[in-house]
């Protein structure tokens, strides 16, 4: 029975973590945007405005839950829950450190990829259920965008999987450091299994994986509906897109899902390309930096630092680049990213056959 209790604790822990991260993420986003736009951001509530998001969530909890008269009530109420659960389920297969993974799935990566695609359905549900033209336009844009960008993201991931030869996220993570069970080559010619560190990360295992990482990163911005790909909720055109009609706790759930999605896609990027929970410090001669800084505790620290760095870059991009037009967005996906991702996959196959 203890067995099942552990499952519940881990599930609740992950939920608590994503809620805490959303609180921190909103605060960080406001501060980052303020810095980039030469403003101050929240300053009044708490020291440096640090209690601002807590005040916001308290306000949201007290708000009335308004359901529009013409809405499809059931779909309208269920949509935020489905959007959030789809993202939250994805966390089940992500490894946090050596031996620390909520669910050790053989098909981990494929599972995460499948579960993320359910979010689209929740967004369409919200758009249709609201019975509002802005909502429905936002939902349709969002679905079109997510479906399109899943293709380059998927092929970028496949080109890594072809090199790593497994879909198990924990195995992929282990291959990129000193705990690797097999040989890890730097660019296909230098065996770095005992050196580890930044040299063993997947982006350096083959030169084309660096391109695959860039493709994945761009596509992941689109999948989490972040600027410059935020046409589903373009404020200047669509009020707030698919979540125009949501208030109070339901709106909070939609936001929670957005920030959890940011964390999820960044963490997948880190696991697949940036060495997962492995340390960036290599073993140099007698200084076994990699061996000293590898372990369960260190693993959580490294993966958090790397993921938060990627999220920081996402925020930086959001407040720097202007929004793309719909047709430019699709052109970028289908005419640039998809062919490049196909090319990466092809090179991965050749690499696997002749160089490994």
């Amino acid at each position, binding site marked *: 029975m203890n067995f099942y209790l552990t499952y519940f604790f881990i599930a609740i822990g992950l939920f608590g973590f994503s809620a805490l991260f959303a609180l921190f993420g909103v605060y960080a986003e406001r501060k980052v945007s303020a810095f980039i736009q030469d403003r101050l951001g929240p300053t009044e509530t708490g020291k440096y405005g640090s209690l601002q998001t807590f005040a916001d969530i308290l306000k949201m909890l007290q708000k009335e839950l308004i359901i529009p008269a013409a809405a499809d009530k059931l779909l309208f109420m269920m949509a935020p829950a489905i959007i959030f659960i789809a993202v939250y389920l994805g966390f089940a297969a992500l490894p946090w450190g050596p031996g620390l993974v909520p669910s050790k799935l053989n098909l981990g990566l494929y599972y995460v990829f499948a579960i993320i695609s359910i979010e689209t359905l929740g967004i*369409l549900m919200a758009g249709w259920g609201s019975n509002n033209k802005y909502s429905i336009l936002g939902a349709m844009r969002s679905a079109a965008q997510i479906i399109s960008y899943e293709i380059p993201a998927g092929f970028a991931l496949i080109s890594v999987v072809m090199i790593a030869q497994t879909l198990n996220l924990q195995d992929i993570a282990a291959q990129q450091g000193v705990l690797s069970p097999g040989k890890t080559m730097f660019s296909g010619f230098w065996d770095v299994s005992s050196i580890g560190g930044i040299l063993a990360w997947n982006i350096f295992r083959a030169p084309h994986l660096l391109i695959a990482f860039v493709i994945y990163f761009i596509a992941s911005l689109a999948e989490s509906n972040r600027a410059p790909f935020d046409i589903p909720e373009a404020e200047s055109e669509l009020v707030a897109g698919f979540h125009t009609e949501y208030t109070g706790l339901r709106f909070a759930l939609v936001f929670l899902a957005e920030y959890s999605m940011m964390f999820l896609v960044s963490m997948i990027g880190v696991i697949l390309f940036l060495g997962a929970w492995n340390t960036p410090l290599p073993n140099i001669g007698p200084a076994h930096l990699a061996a000293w800084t590898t372990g369960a505790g260190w693993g959580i620290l490294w993966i958090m630092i790397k993921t938060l760095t990627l999220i920081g870059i996402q925020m930086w991009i959001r407040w720097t680049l202007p929004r793309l037009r719909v047709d430019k967005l699709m052109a970028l996906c289908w005419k640039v990213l998809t062919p490049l991702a196909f090319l990466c996959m092809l090179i991965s196959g050749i690499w696997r056959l002749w160089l490994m």
Partner: protein
Amino acid sequence: MSLAQVLFYIMSFISLASALFVASTKNLVRSIFMFFITLFALAGLYVLALADFVAITQIVIYVGGILVLILFAFMLSGKETLNAITQQRKAFISLRKIPAILLAALFLIVLVNMIFKVDANNLAWIRRSIEARNDITPSSAMTENIGVSLMTNYLLPFEAISILLMIALVGAAHLSRKGARP
């Protein structure tokens, strides 16, 4: 009853009940969202049958692809079209429905016949596989198995499907092309 059995009955109940709702409701959009629940419960049943790869593929293709495309078609067609479908005639048995009823009845007869004839607990080919140790366990990795099978025993069907998909892609590109058509 073991936990697996309880899960099996829960999931088959969910899939059957939601499928009934999909077939009977007049609200088409809700029936599509209900179909999502049916597909999810089916994916759960696949997992119980140790076919986890099939389960996830079902979610990727049906939920992430086909259902979203159906919803797209819905949202692009106007409310009037949808209302016309809602106001169908209510009679349960009518002349127009006879082919459907006939087909369903025949299919039911075939299914019932199958269920009574097959002795599911000791099928010959399953017993042979177990004796030859050619079976899968909950911990075995299925992806390699599927990949090798697709590239050896089932290469011809696999390639035939890829050609079919290619034809569909070329057709879609041709239909959406700008300019004068021959």
